[in-house]
């Protein structure tokens, strides 16, 4: 694992995948999603979006905003979407490839008391690929961008005015030599209808974009998982298609939340169905040629570290094995109400563990080590072997897992991982240096925010 102080993003490609849907099942679900778009349609909010869809041949009910998209329209539009692309950082070693089987965490800052401090810690953790800034805290964009050289994604229900701010900020930050795309993107979120115009404006400005609808609470999805998957996939296809109509070839990824139905406790899709849905949605996205990011709602309580850990681990594993590019929402618990640096460090460790699992087992002449096995012989020890020295550092090294003796643990105060994570977070922030943001650019960003009245 890269020295965390260096801050570069480490996102090994997953060699292993887990397909929880057979190929024919993926096909059926995708077809079902297209059928839903053509027959039931979706509600679309946005004059630009409606105009594009109408011009492309969709059936638009102007009075209700209900749009029916023929399957051929969807396929034609999505054909221009890139299967993978680079979301650049401010410096090259913070670049993130979205799609292509590589993944990392999205560190959220929604509940962070200090966005800059949260972004700094995110910058220091190699497992974190991008930093999320909620749209309602857009005024803190200059501080966030200065505190991290990693890409920043503005997330939430974006208004047209907010989209304008993000577009202006992206232009101010700019790209770097050979990489014109700025280190800024948007994840637009809509609670009911598909509010797409702000997203389309960002796409036309060249920003990386994603769109998701919040899984509805308490029964707004069919009770069977297959139907729920088809419905979520349909929404992703619709948003992607519209974006491509607005800006063909623009980078788009599908953000997905777990899909499940709760019978007695309205809430997000926690539990096995939600876990499994990540790999399933990833398969569906891949079938449509779209990269995917997976977010899990941080409903886990901060005071139940066991539940939070199991919850987070299963989701991380599902995302990694499904080939998701990003896993959000690191660092948060209690329904998103609480952010803690310790939680971000814990999530990074979990992701690191899971990513190592996803890297799989290399089987070749060197790793089979027949000569070493023979040399060590029966009852011997491999410690002194050259082969061991060559490979021993490839074993995953945790920052937080305690593998020491029980008595030592008792003597040292029975400190658990959260406590050690908090300590590590402080140490990382104290020792970490972020490539500086040009002073003029920072001033420009502040002016943009001030002008917008944020």
């Amino acid at each position: 694992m890269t020295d965390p102080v260096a801050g570069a993003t480490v996102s090994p490609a997953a060699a292993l995948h887990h397909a929880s849907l057979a190929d024919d099942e993926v096909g059926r679900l995708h077809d079902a999603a297209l059928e839903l778009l053509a027959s039931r349609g979706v509600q679309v909010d946005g004059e630009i979006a409606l105009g594009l869809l109408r011009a492309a041949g969709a059936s638009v009910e102007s009075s209700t905003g209900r749009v029916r998209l023929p399957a051929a329209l969807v396929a034609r539009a999505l054909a221009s979407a890139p299967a993978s692309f680079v979301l650049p950082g401010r410096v090259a070693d913070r670049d993130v490839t979205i799609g292509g089987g590589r993944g990392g965490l999205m560190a959220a800052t929604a509940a962070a008391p200090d966005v800059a401090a949260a972004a700094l810690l995110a910058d220091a953790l190699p497992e974190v690929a991008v930093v999320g800034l909620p749209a309602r805290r857009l005024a803190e964009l200059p501080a966030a961008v200065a505190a991290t050289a990693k890409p920043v994604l503005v997330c939430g229900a974006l208004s047209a005015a907010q989209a304008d701010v993000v577009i202006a900020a992206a232009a101010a930050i700019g790209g770097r030599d050979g990489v014109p795309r700025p280190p800024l993107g948007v994840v637009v979120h809509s609670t009911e209808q598909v509010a797409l115009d702000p997203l389309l404006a960002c796409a036309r400005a060249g920003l990386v974009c994603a769109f998701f609808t919040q899984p509805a609470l308490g029964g707004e999805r069919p009770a069977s998982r297959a139907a729920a998957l088809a419905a979520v996939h349909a929404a992703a296809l619709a948003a992607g298609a519209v974006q491509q109509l607005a800006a063909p070839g623009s980078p788009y990824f599908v953000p997905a939340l777990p899909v499940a139905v709760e019978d007695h406790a309205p809430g997000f899709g926690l539990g096995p169905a939600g876990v499994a849905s990540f790999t399933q949605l990833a398969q569906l996205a891949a079938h449509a040629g779209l990269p995917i990011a997976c977010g899990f709602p941080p409903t886990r309580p901060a005071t139940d570290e066991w539940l939070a850990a199991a919850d987070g681990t299963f989701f991380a594993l599902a995302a990694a094995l499904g080939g998701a590019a990003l896993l959000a929402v690191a660092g948060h618990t209690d329904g998103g109400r609480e952010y803690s640096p310790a939680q971000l460090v814990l999530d990074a460790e979990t992701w690191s563990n899971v990513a190592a699992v996803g890297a799989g087992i290399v089987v070749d002449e060197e790793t089979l080590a027949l000569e070493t096995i023979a040399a060590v012989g029966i009852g011997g020890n491999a410690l002194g072997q050259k082969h061991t020295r060559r490979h021993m550092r490839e074993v995953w090294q945790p920052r937080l897992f305690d593998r020491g003796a029980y008595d030592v643990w008792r003597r040292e105060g029975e400190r658990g991982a959260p406590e050690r994570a908090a300590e590590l977070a402080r140490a990382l922030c104290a020792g970490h240096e972020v490539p500086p943001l040009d002073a003029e650019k920072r001033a420009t960003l502040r002016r943009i925010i001030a002008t917008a009245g944020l």
Partner: protein
Amino acid sequence: MTARINPIAPRLHWDVLSSGDIEAIHEATLTILEDTGIRFPSARALDILEGNGCAVDRRSEVVRLPRKVVMEAVARVPAQYLLAGRDPACDMIIDRAHCYLSNDGSGVFVYDHHTGEKRPSTKADAATSARFVDALPNVSYYWGPVVTSQDVPPASKALHDSEAVLTNTSKHYQAVTTVGERPARLLVEMAAAIVGGTAELRKRPIISFMQCAVDPLGHDGPNLEANLVAAEHGLASGFMPMPLMAGTGPATMAGNLVVQNAEALSGVVLLELAFPGCPAFFAGAPSAMDLKTGGYTAGPEDYLLAAGATQLAHFYGVPMAMGTMATSAKEPDWQAAVDDSLSTFASVMTCADMMNGCGLLNGSKILSYPHMVMETEIYGIVQKVAGGVVVDHDTLAVDLIAKVGPNGTYLSEKHTRRYMKDVWRPTVWDRTPYDVWLSGGKKGALDKATAIADDILANYRSEPLPDDVVAELARIVAGADAELGTP
């Protein structure tokens, strides 16, 4: 009525090793078996192997096994067999299509979850742990004992352990501390006393045996002797290698799998040469060395090794008993959850037939009853994940979705009522709304698991054995005390 045991039949599968990888490791294994060999420190084992065409060095006790002998022998393992419970409702069919969880075993401490103290385990703890396992449907069989009896004569400890277990659970018992020919025969006698004779025991095998190998590339004499007794009586048995990357195995996972595979395979070969067609299995708990402590890791290598080793066992058509869970965490905390989740996923998704197991902390040393309950929750989650998604006309529900339309609700639909029951229901997992959780006192999984554990410990009673059988078991154990001696 809740089923006594709850196996997993995974619909989904996860291949960590490709078919090419498996072939490569298999070939490497055969090369090691033929050229380097395996130590079998047992005269009886050496006789069997030599009599079947293996090259035996009596001085070093090393046996080189020709691939033809190996492959013909391993092919004799039955495609499926029964591990019976005293209660037939606890019967397990080992068929490489079902996963069964057991408790973890050979711990030496018990954690008092009320006082926070840990103390050495006793025979009474072995008994209590068997009663506790008997109560948990997600734990299909008893392995071990969970914690050993440290207040009894050491030489006959395994039989005291077994007496405590057999009188307190009607689930299948896989003994892992019974070594040596004589203790094995005494355990067989105990089991026969329960079912009504050794002939009946062959039909209803309520016990099986598992022994550790000696890494790298060796076995232990008394362990070999015990498993040969098991095989003689038609009882399933297997050997558990635990090669440690960079220590008793190469520092690469593939190389470590070669050592794991060679040891496990060689043990089964011996059993099949001795008693062709006897039920047998591979076992394993391969790991990596933690460079800071020299101990076992519990990390991504463990999960991958477990998955790979299970795939290899199934390549030979042999069931696998894989070390699962067995966290290195000191408490049921963040680390335990991460560790157990990934470990269980790896074992279930490769369909490890037997998964050993839940209940111990600190690298299989400390028994915690609430922790065992929490681990069974993780088992339940993985079980549901392994069931996959059914995609058909009814589950796609396209007509229904069109009918409900945008912004509608499905709550009152018949389709919803039909499928809601399939949704997984937690036991200790909290999914209540935030305000409800707050007003309920912020109870976490550990609190709920503690309450469940306390209820079982206070109130659950397993099906007792008849008095005369209990007396017979006690007689056998008392005889063992005298015969096997005390230090």
